[in-house]
């Protein structure tokens, strides 16, 4: 086998490993995959093709889902025949909601969670934020609580359809 063919073979495995790792669902928002979230940062397959190294980054420093995500990546890749899987947690560059894919934003809205708005990474002290209701689309909404059911969400209410909803915090 020539060097070119070897490189092609490894690349194929890498694409496969990316897809498998990327398809792992966020345990707290199962409608999103870690690829949608931008949590999956890198996947490297070694020269022998049986070892994979995966880099993931936490959304929040204390995100309790990270350990679960790491285990699920290991299991998914092991099932696909990768004998040695190593999952690293990397902190830099820091995750931002801008890394969430368009597909991820759409899936979140359909699931009933208002997606983070792009380029709104930082809330100024006392800045006013508007979030559209993921159910009826009304912009007439109000924040009920700055902290919601998980680190990454706040709790809102729609004044149009009267439904409460979660909003993915801009970060």
């Amino acid at each position, binding site marked *: 086998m020539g060097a070119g063919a070897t490189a092609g073979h490894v690349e194929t495995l890498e694409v496969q490993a990316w897809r498998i790792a990327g398809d792992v669902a966020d345990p707290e928002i199962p409608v999103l995959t870690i690829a949608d979230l931008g949590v999956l940062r890198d996947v490297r397959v070694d020269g022998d093709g049986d070892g994979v190294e995966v880099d993931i980054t*936490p959304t*929040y*420093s*204390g*995100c*309790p889902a990270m350990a679960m995500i790491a285990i699920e990546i290991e299991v998914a890749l092991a099932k696909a025949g990768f004998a040695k899987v190593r999952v690293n947690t*990397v*902190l*830099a*560059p*820091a*995750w931002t909601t801008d890394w969430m894919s368009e597909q991820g934003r759409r899936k979140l809205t359909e699931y009933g969670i208002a997606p983070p708005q792009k380029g709104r*990474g*930082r*809330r100024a*002290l*006392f800045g006013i934020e508007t979030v559209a209701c993921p159910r009826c689309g009304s912009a007439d909404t109000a924040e009920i*609580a*700055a*902290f*919601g*059911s998980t*680190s990454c969400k706040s709790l809102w209410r729609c004044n149009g359809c009267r439904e409460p909803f979660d909003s993915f*915090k801009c*970060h």
Partner: protein
Amino acid sequence: MALANMGLDHIGQARSLYSHAAAIEGAGHDEDAFAFLRDERAYRNVLLVEQPNGDFACTILRQFLYAAFAEPYWRAMMGSRDAILAAIAAKAEKEMAYHVRHSAEWVIRLGDGTAESRARIVAAIEALWPYTGELFEADEADQAVIEEGIGLDPLTLQHAWRDVVARVFAQATLPMPADGHMRKGGRRGHHSEHLGHMLAQMQYLQRAMPGASW
């Protein structure tokens, strides 16, 4: 819910810092060794953060006074020459910005609220203000890392901190307290009685059953 989430951010930051400290120490320890197996005197935290929750005004004011310091601290630490510290800082800075905002909104509600809420936040300021001076002190260990561009002199943050606190207190119609006697000692391992009680609760399991894991 907010306090639990804020606690989670602090635990996450502490885990990253302890893991990094363990790697630098190179003695085979991990984050848990620092969290669960050190005695009170080995802790170097400022006294402010070990003050009891008290009522909601006390809790939220403690969080506000600390977050207003931690936000500019971590923002400046993003420029640390230690790449891992800079990375931890980049995450912590965003989290602390959110804490400042949330706790500040509560300080304003309480100060500019009812006679009862105002009395509570005024009492909280009186109780906690003497612990704020220690935030800006640097010891020899700090000096060493400041010189190497790894750490920063907390004194450089004092103006930014005062500005935010003064702005929030003004909106809350609360007077800015005078700086009287400041209580210090935490950075040298001399703690108030509250830390020992907290550690007893936090460390009990690892002390009773060393190495226990889920």
